């Protein structure tokens, strides 16, 4: 599904990613762990198409399409979803209206008519119930005045609504208390199937107790220094990242 070969990316001439190789297949959950500043969030931004990063080498393909020429919205239309670490506040646009705009933009790009209102309402109702989201919450302005947990839950709600093929969860656990974490993780697990894939980006192993990865990669200084099974996450929890940093040198 997603193939990354020798990806180098920089911002303002500073190289952040220094040769990433990664392949994610349908039905898989991958985790990328790493210390602060290792390039985890950069990787997610580059996959989603953020312009301020420059790809200097390598390639990213998604279902055979080279992503490098595509705008962020075109990548979204192909089924890539990024759950933001810091979702942006949009005053004056309610969660519901934002989702309608987003879904219809996807449909338009794929040659479909706008989703009928009753279908939209049903979808919103189903997904908000799944994530235990209060109806009142949906009429509030997007992310405005939301707590950290509400923002993250709202990101997963958007993911549920858009039903992407590849979901990238960037530090989705940060700012969540344990109850919220469980709800979010349950939501992600319910959305998983053999046709979609999840890339979890996290500093801590905590989230991976709930969203269990098939593969764990460790990113240090812009490179994947180790790849293993879910037990690697436990190892990191116990030993920290220092031993891998040494190995990387």
């Amino acid at each position: 599904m997603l193939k990354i070969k020798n990806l180098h990316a920089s911002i303002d001439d500073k190289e952040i990613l220094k040769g990433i190789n990664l392949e994610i297949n349908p039905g898989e959950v991958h985790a990328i762990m790493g210390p602060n500043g290792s390039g985890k969030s950069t990787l997610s931004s580059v996959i989603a198409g953020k312009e301020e990063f420059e790809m200097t080498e390598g390639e990213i393909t998604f279902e055979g399409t080279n992503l490098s020429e595509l705008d962020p919205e075109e990548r979204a239309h192909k089924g890539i979803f990024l759950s933001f670490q810091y979702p942006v506040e949009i005053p004056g646009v309610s969660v519901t209206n934002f989702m309608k705009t987003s879904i219809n933009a996807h449909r338009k790009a794929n040659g479909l008519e706008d989703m009928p209102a009753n279908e939209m309402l049903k979808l919103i109702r189903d997904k908000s119930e799944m994530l235990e989201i209060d109806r009142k919450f949906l009429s509030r302005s997007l992310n405005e005045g939301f707590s950290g947990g509400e923002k993250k839950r709202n990101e997963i709600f958007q993911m549920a609504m858009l039903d992407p093929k590849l979901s990238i969860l960037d530090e989705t656990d940060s700012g969540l208390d344990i109850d919220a974490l469980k709800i979010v993780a349950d939501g992600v697990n319910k959305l998983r199937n053999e046709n979609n894939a999840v890339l979890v980006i996290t500093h801590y192993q905590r989230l991976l107790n709930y969203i269990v990865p098939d593969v764990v990669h460790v990113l240090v200084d812009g490179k994947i220094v180790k790849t293993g099974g879910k037990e690697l996450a436990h190892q990191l929890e116990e030993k920290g990242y220092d031993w891998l940093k040494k190995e990387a040198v």
Partner: protein
Amino acid sequence: MELKDKLVSSFLAFEEDFGADNEVHQIRSQAIKDFEDLGFPGRKEEAWKYTSLNSILKHDYSVFPKKEEAIEYRDIKKYLIHDIDTYDLVFIDGIYSSHLSQTTHDKIDVCLMSSALNKPQYKPVIDNYFNKIAPKSGLNALNTAFAKEGAFIHIHKNKLADKPIQIINFSTGNESALLVQPRNLMVVDENSHVQIIERHQSLTDHPVLTNSVTELYADKRAIVDYYKIQNDKSTASLIDNTFIEQQAESHVSVHTFSFGGKLVRNNLNFYQKGERIDSTLKGVTIIEGKQHVDHNTLVHHIEPNCESHQDYKGVFSDKSVGVFNGKVVVEKEAQKTNAYQSNNNILVDDKATINSKPQLEIFADDVKCSHGCTIGQLDEEALFYLQSRGIPRKEARGLLMYAFANNVLESVKIPEIKKRINKLIALKLGVELGFNL
């Protein structure tokens, strides 16, 4: 002949036509002298530094429109707030149109300035309030000299205007170029409440210049919500001079929505003459092309324990020019004043301009006054967020600008106005909202 000379020499004919024995004859005669002395404001005056009237004063304006143009309701319906019940005062080329209007004298007076100036029963109100707060300036004097028609609203003590009052001035283009000068007087007595909607709309491509003066008195505990919708053609210019005097514990809000016109200048002045007064001034400006919108505000805090809230937002595209000049004066006696002012702007294109100038003159020592001004582009992170949700960049920009401007609407108290303005904003920004607002 220059416009100024033409206007001065037209005055005699105007007086003959209207009656030199009229009560306000003295006031008019003085006003034309003042106008002769002061003339039109020029850019050497500090308050007009960023706005030149030259380009709109060069036309050979007709001052006395011939007769009422026949306009059918269906032609103008879209300019009216028609989905709710309202009192309507409709003027066409400065002349009252009775068949398009709905007036009342039942508990409140919603009628015409021409009646108020001529009928004895209104004499006490005219004597007390007409031309009392508008300060001496060339533009005010010009309007006063030719003051003849406009809205006269008197909400008597303890009365509630049961529906909003719409004042709409149409110009039809019968004349090649037209100058209209509406003169409005609104007296809102103690404990009374009224909502007012004002709009100027050209129906022609001929140049139109409106120089309007509105005086509004809010007595003790009166509540006034005033909405100005400025979405005119790019051949129409508007100078709106509005002067508001408030007595103790009154609340007056003015929302100005400036979405179009060749040149728009809003002189909006508040004078607080009692304690615990609340004055609210809000504005959304969204313009493009070569349009020019200037907000010149004054809040004069004279008594203690009062508040003022100013929030102006602007989105400027192409070569459009915005001006915000907001002055707050806090007199020595006006302790415990809370005065807030903010002016936030987005410049969409490189050649768009905003001149933003807050002016605070504070003579009291125990006050809270804040002002802030921002000029920026759209936040790239927010754009990326929207794009990553599949929303194309152009629409994402529109949506962000919509969100930026939209929150000024929170204080709009008439839902139909809020809805209408929301739609106008979305339309102006090319946002297909895909949802019902």
